[in-house]
Structures are given as structure tokens and as C-alpha cells.
């Protein structure tokens, strides 16, 4: 009945047991609720990375709780089942807690590092905050600069610009004083030009070569300078410490610094100095952003100043030009008035002077015709001579003025060139022979007999030139040559502006007058053609004349589209006067008197050239016959020869034209031509030499011209062609058929 197992139903320490019982119960409770709480909160947060750990923890706690719970049953006698359950629970708990303990070794360092990262991020955030603050301040500065620039650039007036700068800077930076020192004209001193507070600064100057100033000028940054520096002593010394002073250089860019295509090199040496002073009783310091603002503003000021300078410069130039314009206008009007006055004067003189002159000359000539004593005759002759001279002078002067006005026009007409030269010779021969000068005239054979031009004035020009030659030669000879100027020789190196253009109905006549007189020295040559300029040598002072002759001749020559000049090797070496004038070639006039045609009764079919004696030389019998027939058909008296020797034998002065039919112009034609030239020295007796040729080119034509032929005809020659060719030939004495 009594069992041996001691199973206290209730232990004797009843109270202690009770408390342990209660504690175990509460521990178990707590141990069960903690995981529940953890699960609840972890479920709420999604970020927690260590779920597995939590599960472990939960298991550990649950099992601990279970252990403590099961412990409750061990206070009272319990069955074996309870003991085994207890054991299982304890074993599991032990397992899980060991595993958990091992896991914690990994986890806790991680958790700690999370903390470090958090700290780092916080610091970063603080830094960013600071930078944001800085950027905001910079933006503020930029805004200030823009506003300042806007203010400064809104005017082009230098003073306004500077004044505005100082005012705005003062306001923006709350400065006590702001001043600008400009370099003086000499560049050796800086002069106080503008200040903020004082309205009219005294012209206080400071020498420019001060170490502090040099330092400021050497960099384009704003430099903090000592308040004791001469440039900074702007305020009267106060009780308080003066505020910090900053100085910055302002480059003064000149107009010459701006090249067209590149930016100005900042190698300019002129700087102004801007000094900024903080309020003296504040503890303010210059901040970096404030300095940057100052530098930016200074640059803008420099540009604005240059613009202002450019504007001033251009305004000045414009004013100058306007003044000059006005002056020129006035001068022009005065000149016009003078010209008009002169013209009026000349017009009056023209009439008024000529009338009495005419009267004197006429009456003196009439007087000459009457009965006079020798003395009286002498007197009248002198009067006549003097009045003639005077009349010439008046005419010359008036002519010249008309020439200069451009109101003189040439009287064009057809005239005989030979006649003109003969006349000149006739006029000059008496005077020349008195002076025992020999005058010779040489006219080129290719000179056309007739030309179109102003005969009177051409004669005047030739006469003037020849007259000068005679006047200025005491002995020796005068040679006059005239020929047609060839195109190559027309361009004279001495007259580069003379650009003659040969054309089909004009030719250029070149006349050269060479004398063996006193010559002209090279430095006088340019003056020869100016009005009233006379060669000052004593020999000529007695020769009279007005000195207008050459000037007038030059005007005439220019009117004839030519050129006149004088060449001389020096004093005592004679001189040559040369002029070239453009003359027209007269139209073919059919009823023109051909000097070599004796009048014969006209014959039907032979009206063209009756009796014209011609010689035909042709080695080819057939073509000789044809040419002969052709010419006979035109009425010519034709003699034919078959070789050059025969030709030379038979040619006589009766033959007017020699036709040479040469296959190739070679030595034969050359020989014949030169022999004919030799045989008939006098130009008028020589027959014209014409060659007929099959085809030709420019070279052949030039060759023919060169060897002295008068004409060239291209075969085949029709009747009409021969007719027109012969008429041209006989009229002009030259015919080179154009290619």
C-alpha cells in the first residue's frame, strides 16, 4: 500500500516552490510572446534581411519557453512521459541555441557596418548641403554681375560707365569707398579720377612704379592690399581700424588693340586701378565670391570703356570729314567761279582785241602800198611786223584757252599730204637759207597721198616744229622725215600712256624733225610743252616768240589722237622732235583724178584702165596667158615675160604696175623687187610691184611688205576682183589684201 518512490506531492519549501513555479510560468509566457512580436514587426517591415536568423531566434526562444513550461510539471511528481518530453525539449533547445550562437558570429559585424554606412551617408548629406549653399551664393554673385554689366553697358559715355560701376559695386558689396585711378598722359603717374563718396575728387596723383601697384598690375585677379598703401588712403583716418582693401587692374584697351580678325592681345600696357574698401568698423572680410564678382565686373568695364573710346574716335573722324567736305565744296565753287570769270574774259578779249588788231594790220598794209619815203617805209614795215607778231600772240593765247576748254574741234577734210609738206618747206626755206641751214624732206614711199584730217592745224603743227628747229639752230641741217608708223613701233617706250589702235580706215603718220642746233638738256624736256616756258639760254632769248607754240602743237596732236615728244642728247647736241597723229584714209572716189592716166576715148569693155602699161611676169605659160587676157580685158597695155631676168630687162618707167606671179615668194621675188627699187630711185617713176600668190598667210604678207612690194593679190583673180584691185592700187599706191 505504501509505494517506495518518494514523490513529494507538495514540497515542504512550499513558498520557494511557488515562486519558482510562477517565474517559470512568466518566463515561458515571455519567451512565447517575443517571437510573436518579432514575427509581427518583421512582417511589417519588408527590408529586414535576416529572416533566417529570426526564424532561428524564434525557434530558440520557443524551445526555451517550452523547456521552462515543461519545467512546471516537474515540480509535482510526474510521469515518465513528462520526463522524456522534458528531455527532448532540452536537447532541442541546446541544439538550436548552439547553432544560433554560431550564427551570431557572422551577423553582428555586418550589423555594425550598417551603422558605419549610415554615419557616412549623414556626413555626405551635410557636405552636399554646404555645396548647395556655395552654388547659391555664386548664382547670387552672377546675378549681381549681370545686373551691374547691364547698368554699365547701357551707356556709351565713359564717365557714366565709370560712375555707374562704382555706384553699383558700392551698393552690391556694401563698400565704404570705391575709387578709380587712371594713368596720366605721360604714363608715369596714376591720378585719382573717380570716387564713390566724394563727388569731385582732387587731382591727387601717385607715381605708378610702386611695388604694390606693380603687384596688382601683374595679375588679373583682385589683390588684397594694405590700407596704408598710397592708393588706399582715401578716407581720413578714423577711430576704427580701416576695413580690408582690395585693388584690381582695369585694362584700358585701345583702338589699335583690335585687329580685324583676331581678338585683342592683352599685351596692352595701360591699366587703371580700381580700389575697393570694406566698411571700416565691421569685421567683414573679403570672400572669394566677392573677389570674383569684382574681377568679372572689371572685365566688363574694360570692354565698355573701349566701346566708348571707339565711339568717341569715330565721332571725331566724322566731324573732321564733314569739315573737310565743307572746305572742299567751297574750294570747288571758287574754282568754278574763277573758270567762268576767265572764260568770260577771254570771250570779251577775243572780240575786243582782234578788232583793233585787224584794223592796225589792214591799214598798215594799205599804207605800205602808198608812196612813202624810205624811212617811212621802214617804220611802216616795223609796225606791220610787230602787229603781225602781236596778232599771232593773241591768236595763240585764245586758241590755247579754247583748246583747254575742249571747245576746239578739228576741221576734217581730205587733203594731200605731199602738198602740206611742200608748203611747209616753201615757207621755211627762205628763213633757213638766210641762216644757211640745209633743209631736207624725206617722205616714205608707202605714205598715202591723201588723208582725212585737219589740214590747217596739221600744217600749223609741222610748221611750229620745223620753225622751232630752224629757230634754235645756228648752223647745220634740218631733216624732216615722214612715214606711216608701223603697229609695232607705235608703242613707244617713252610714251607708255599712248595706246594707238590701228584700224582699217585710219593710219598713223609719224613725222620726225631733226636739227643740229643747241639741243635741250634732259631736265628741261618735260617742261618744253608747258605754256610760256622758254628755254632760258641766252641764245634763244632774242628769238622772240611766246613759248606757246609747242603747247599748242601738243594740244593739236592730242586732238588728233596722237603723241608728240622731243628727244635730245643734251645741250649742243641738237634735238629731234617727233610726233605721231592719226589720220583717216579717204574713201575710194571714182571720179578722182588718177595722176597717171592720160585721157583716152572710152571703149566698150575697156573703160577701166585705158592704156595702162603693165608688165606681167609668170613662169607658167597657162596662167600667164590667163592673166594677160584678164588685164587686156580691162584695157591695159600688157607685156608678158616668162622669167625674172627678162622682167628686169624689160621693165621701164613706162610700166605703171609689175605683176609677179610667183609660186613661192623666194629669192627671185626679193631680187626683182630690190632691183626694181634700185633701178627707179625716184619714187614717182617706179612701177608698183604686185605679187599674185595662190594662198597666203600673215607671214607671207609681212615678208612681201618687208621686201618692198606694194601689193599682194590672192589667186584666183576674177575680172571684177582685178578691176577693183587695180583701182585701189593706183589710188593708194599700196594694196595688201587682208587675210
Amino acid at each position, binding site marked *: 500500500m505504501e509505494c517506495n518512490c518518494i514523490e513529494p506531492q507538495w514540497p515542504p519549501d512550499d513558498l520557494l516552490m511557488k515562486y519558482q513555479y510562477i517565474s517559470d510560468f512568466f518566463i515561458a509566457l515571455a519567451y512565447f510572446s517575443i517571437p510573436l512580436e518579432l514575427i509581427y514587426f518583421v512582417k511589417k517591415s519588408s527590408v529586414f534581411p535576416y529572416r533566417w536568423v529570426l526564424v532561428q531566434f524564434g525557434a530558440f526562444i520557443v524551445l526555451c519557453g517550452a523547456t521552462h513550461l515543461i519545467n512546471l510539471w516537474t515540480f509535482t511528481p510526474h510521469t515518465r512521459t513528462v520526463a522524456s518530453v522534458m528531455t527532448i525539449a532540452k536537447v532541442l533547445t541546446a541544439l538550436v541555441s548552439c547553432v544560433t550562437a554560431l550564427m551570431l558570429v557572422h551577423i553582428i559585424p555586418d550589423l555594425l557596418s550598417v551603422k558605419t554606412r549610415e554615419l557616412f551617408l549623414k556626413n555626405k548629406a551635410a557636405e552636399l548641403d554646404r555645396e548647395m549653399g556655395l552654388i547659391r551664393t555664386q548664382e547670387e554673385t552672377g546675378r549681381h554681375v549681370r545686373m551691374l554689366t547691364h547698368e554699365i553697358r547701357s551707356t556709351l559715355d565713359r564717365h557714366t560707365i565709370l560712375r555707374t560701376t562704382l555706384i553699383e559695386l558700392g551698393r552690391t558689396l556694401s563698400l565704404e569707398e570705391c575709387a578709380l585711378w587712371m594713368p596720366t598722359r605721360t604714363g608715369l603717374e596714376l591720378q585719382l579720377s573717380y570716387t564713390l563718396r566724394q563727388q569731385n575728387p582732387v587731382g591727387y596723383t601717385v607715381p605708378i612704379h610702386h611695388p604694390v601697384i606693380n603687384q596688382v598690375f601683374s595679375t588679373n585677379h583682385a589683390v588684397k592690399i594694405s590700407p596704408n598703401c598710397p592708393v588706399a588712403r582715401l578716407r581720413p583716418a578714423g577711430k576704427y581700424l580701416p576695413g580690408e582693401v582690395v585693388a584690381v587692374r582695369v585694362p584700358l584697351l585701345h583702338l589699335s588693340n583690335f585687329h580685324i580678325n583676331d581678338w585683342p592681345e592683352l599685351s596692352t600696357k595701360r591699366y587703371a586701378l580700381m580700389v575697393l574698401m570694406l566698411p571700416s568698423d565691421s569685421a567683414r572680410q573679403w570672400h572669394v565670391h566677392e573677389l570674383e564678382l569684382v574681377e568679372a565686373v572689371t572685365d566688363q568695364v574694360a570692354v565698355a570703356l573701349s566701346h566708348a573710346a571707339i565711339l568717341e574716335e569715330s565721332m571725331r573722324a566724322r566731324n573732321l570729314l564733314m569739315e573737310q567736305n565743307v572746305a572742299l565744296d567751297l574750294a570747288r565753287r571758287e574754282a568754278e567761279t574763277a573758270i567762268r570769270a576767265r572764260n568770260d574774259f577771254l570771250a570779251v578779249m577775243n572780240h575786243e582785241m582782234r578788232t583793233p588788231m585787224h584794223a592796225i594790220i589792214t591799214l598798215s598794209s594799205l599804207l605800205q602800198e602808198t608812196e612813202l619815203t624810205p624811212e617811212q617805209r621802214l617804220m611802216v614795215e616795223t609796225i606791220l611786223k610787230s602787229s603781225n607778231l602781236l596778232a599771232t600772240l593773241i591768236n595763240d593765247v585764245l586758241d590755247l584757252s579754247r583748246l583747254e576748254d575742249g571747245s576746239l574741234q578739228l576741221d576734217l577734210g581730205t587733203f594731200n599730204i605731199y602738198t602740206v609738206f611742200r608748203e611747209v618747206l616753201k615757207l621755211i626755206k627762205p628763213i633757213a637759207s638766210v641762216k644757211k641751214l640745209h633743209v631736207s624732206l624725206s617722205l616714205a614711199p608707202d605714205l598715202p597721198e591723201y588723208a582725212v584730217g585737219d589740214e590747217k592745224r596739221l600744217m600749223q603743227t609741222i610748221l611750229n616744229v620745223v620753225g622751232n628747229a630752224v629757230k634754235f639752230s645756228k648752223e647745220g641741217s634740218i631733216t624732216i622725215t615722214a612715214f606711216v608708223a608701223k603697229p609695232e613701233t607705235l608703242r613707244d617706250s617713252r610714251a607708255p600712256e599712248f595706246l594707238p589702235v590701228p584700224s582699217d580706215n585710219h593710219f598713223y603718220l609719224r613725222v620726225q624733225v631733226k636739227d643740229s642746233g643747241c639741243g635741250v638738256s634732259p631736265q628741261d624736256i618735260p617742261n618744253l610743252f608747258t605754256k610760256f616756258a622758254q628755254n632760258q639760254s641766252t641764245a634763244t632769248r632774242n628769238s622772240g616768240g611766246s613759248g606757246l607754240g609747242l603747247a599748242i602743237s601738243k594740244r593739236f596732236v592730242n586732238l588728233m589722237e596722237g603723241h608728240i615728244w622731243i628727244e635730245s642728247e643734251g645741250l649742243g647736241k641738237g634735238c629731234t622732235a617727233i610726233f605721231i597723229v592719226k589720220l583717216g584714209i579717204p574713201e575710194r572716189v571714182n571720179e578722182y583724178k588718177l595722176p597717171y592716166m592720160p585721157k583716152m576715148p572710152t571703149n566698150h569693155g575697156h573703160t577701166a584702165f585705158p592704156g595702162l602699161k603693165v608688165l606681167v611676169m609668170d613662169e607658167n605659160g597657162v596662167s600667164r596667158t*590667163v592673166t594677160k587676157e584678164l588685164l587686156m580685158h580691162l584695157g591695159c597695155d600688157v607685156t608678158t615675160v616668162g622669167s625674172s631676168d627678162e622682167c628686169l630687162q624689160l621693165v621701164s618707167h613706162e610700166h605703171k604696175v609689175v605683176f609677179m606671179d610667183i609660186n613661192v615668194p623666194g629669192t627671185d621675188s626679193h631680187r626683182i623687187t630690190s632691183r626694181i627699187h634700185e633701178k627707179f630711185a625716184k619714187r614717182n617713176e617706179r612701177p608698183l610691184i604686185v605679187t599674185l600668190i*595662190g594662198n597666203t598667210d600673215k607671214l607671207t604678207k609681212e615678208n612681201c611688205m618687208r621686201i618692198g612690194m606694194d601689193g599682194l593679190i590672192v589667186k*584666183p583673180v576674177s575680172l571684177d576682183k582685178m578691176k577693183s584691185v587695180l583701182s585701189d592700187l593706183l589710188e593708194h599706191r599700196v594694196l595688201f589684201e587682208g587675210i
Partner: protein
Amino acid sequence: MDIVNQLQRQFIDHSTSLHREGIVDDQFTELQKLQDENSPDFVVEVVSLFFEDSEKLLNNMARALEQAQGVDFKQVDASVHQLKGSSSSIGAMRVKNACIAFRSFCEAQNREGCLRCLQKVTHEYSLLKNKLQSLFRLEQQILAAGGSIPVAK
């Protein structure tokens, strides 16, 4: 008068064909213009002169070109040149053109070419001679029949 008309028409045809075929050119017409009552036989005379000259020249050329040992091209050229001159004087266009070609071969001293050209020139010359002789015969016939030579153009 029918005969005269017929002959005249034949003459015109013949003359036209001469010009059309290029055997003669305008120079021949010019020659015909030169013939008048003062020189009534001018054309015939000139043409006969031409025939004489040409035959001599052609013989010269043939002989010169037949030389086995070295052809004297200068001589040949001179003859061709003469023939060219004569033919152009009377307006024998084809003969003249043949001569021009002949000359270039002479300059090149090409014997074969020269022989060929000589053949051509001879051929043209014979053609010309025939044609002109028939033309002249027609003229005679017209004149004998009492008609007048129609003037071309």
C-alpha cells in the same frame, strides 16, 4: 532651128555637168567671161596651151618616177607644182586637187604613193580633156549651124 536648139541644150547640159561633177570650177567661168569679140578663141587657145603643157609635164613625171636608181622627187614636185598652177589657172578643179595630194606624197618621198597619184592625175586629166573637147565640138557645131553659144548663168 531645132538643131540649134538641140545643140544648145546639149551644150548647156554638158556645161552644167562639167560644173556639177567638179571637173571645172568658177575659174573656168571667168575664162569664158574673158572671151569676147576682141579675143573670140581665147578659151580654146588657153585650154590647148594647157593640154600641151600638161602632157609634157605628165611625161616628165612618169619618166622621173620610173627611174630605178633613185627618184628625183624634187623634179617630180616641180612638175606637179607647175601642173597645179596651170590647172588652177584654167579652173580644172579635180586635176588641181589631185596635184595637191600628189605634192604631199612627193614631200614624203613615197614612190608608191606618187605612182598612184600620177595615175589619178592622168585619169583626171584625160577625163577633163575629153569633156572639154566635146564641149568645144558642140560649140563649133552650134556656130556652124548659125546659132550662138548660150552663156552660162
